[in-house]
């Protein structure tokens, strides 16, 4: 049984697994980018009251493997609170928190490093604060942050695989189930790798292209 035979034979299950993976990823991306963007801007604006606690949380979180964090949300936290939460929701909450702090870190750094001189130049050229924001600040901030944000989102897509370990029926769990039936680990996990390559490589390529294309035009030489 070849890789393609497995994909052909179990395509329904694989597609269902992919749909769950994408659903999970979409929610994590949406809320992570939204909340992380807001937290990053707030951290840059209110450095002490929001920036310091946010950086502390981010620092602590960076010391905990994502898998441990996810498991902690799934078992100890629910035991402490004496609640049972759907594993899909648990995965959404845990991975969104991770994504949010990674996005916030990136946004805060980009904003903190934004060269004030470009705003000064806009002022003395007579641009209004709103024109400066839309014509100068936002384009430069987006150019600086989008490649990094894309890379983080690709990593988060890959991190959704951990959700299989708390019983979320995403693509990795489906692959494990197929493997338990056919017992062809090389072919099954190669098929999984091919699927992820098809999804992640273009995104990584896009991030690299954006980085090479735009970030050199962010700072004055």
């Amino acid at each position, binding site marked *: 049984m070849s890789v393609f035979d497995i994909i052909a034979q179990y395509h329904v299950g694989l597609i269902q697994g992919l749909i769950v993976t994408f659903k999970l990823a979409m929610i994590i991306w949406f809320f992570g980018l939204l909340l992380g963007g807001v937290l990053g801007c707030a951290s840059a604006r209110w450095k002490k009251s929001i920036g310091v606690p946010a950086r502390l949380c981010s620092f602590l979180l960076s010391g905990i493997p994502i898998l441990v964090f996810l498991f902690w949300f799934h078992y100890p936290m629910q035991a402490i609170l004496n609640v049972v939460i759907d594993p899909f929701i648990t995965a959404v909450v845990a991975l969104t928190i991770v994504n949010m702090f990674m996005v916030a870190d990136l946004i805060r750094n980009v904003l903190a490093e934004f060269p004030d*001189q*470009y705003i*000064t*130049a*806009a*002022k*003395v*050229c*007579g*641009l*209004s604060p709103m*024109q400066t924001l839309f*014509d*100068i600040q936002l*384009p*430069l901030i987006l*150019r600086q942050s989008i490649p990094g944000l894309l890379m983080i989102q690709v990593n988060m897509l890959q991190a959704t695989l951990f959700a299989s370990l708390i019983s979320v029926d995403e693509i990795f769990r489906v692959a494990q189930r197929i493997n338990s039936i056919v017992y062809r680990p090389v072919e099954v996990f190669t098929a999984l790798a091919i699927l992820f390559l098809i999804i992640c490589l273009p995104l990584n390529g896009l991030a690299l292209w954006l980085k090479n294309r*735009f970030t*050199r*035009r*962010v*700072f*004055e*030489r």
Partner: protein
Amino acid sequence: MLTAENIYKSYGQNQILKGIGLRVKPGKITALIGPSGSGKTTLLRCLSMLEAPNAGEINFDNKTYRFPLDAGDKIIPPWPDLTVVFQQLFLWPHLTLRENITLPLKRTGREQELEHLESLIDLFNMRLFIDRYPDETSLGQRQRAALVRALALKPKFILLDEITSSLDVEQVGLILNELKAMRDRGIGILIITHLLHFASEGADQIVFMDKGQVIESGAPAILKNPRTDRLKQFVSIVEAAT
């Protein structure tokens, strides 16, 4: 006329400007010279109203700005009628040189000046590189673009902060010619420079600053015959170094 009277500026306990008075006339080049740390750039930032002086008065085009401001008062600086070109140029890196020049024209309702842009591009010999991004051009080319960006806005006064500091002799000569052309258009120019020959050849008035005060000012001849010992000492040190 752009005038400053009794300007004081301090950062914390550090008093940078101590009662400075200065007059920049339209159609004239005023060169501001002095040792590093004498307060030249701070004075330029105060004159351009990028920073509010702690005390004093700035008069631009018959409008008086008094400092300190009363509580709740906000100044509306006369940008871009009064504009600045900085040492680091601050060209926006995501725009081509042409876009750097045209963006302020479009945003400040000066679209009619776009017609004259081509002649400015020719005057400053920028045709070959006008559509390149700043990181694809040399420092001298960017310097010209920064000047044209300011000039295209048809300001009444331009303040220039050390714009010749990284240029070679030939490029300094070019910039000097361009400043003279700007002066002939009636623009008042204040230039901070370390190049005494540049100041003596191009300026109509020299202002020498030290330790936050104007020590001596007058026609370029003061560089040859300084009245004060401090300017005499400064000139001899600079000439010995160059």
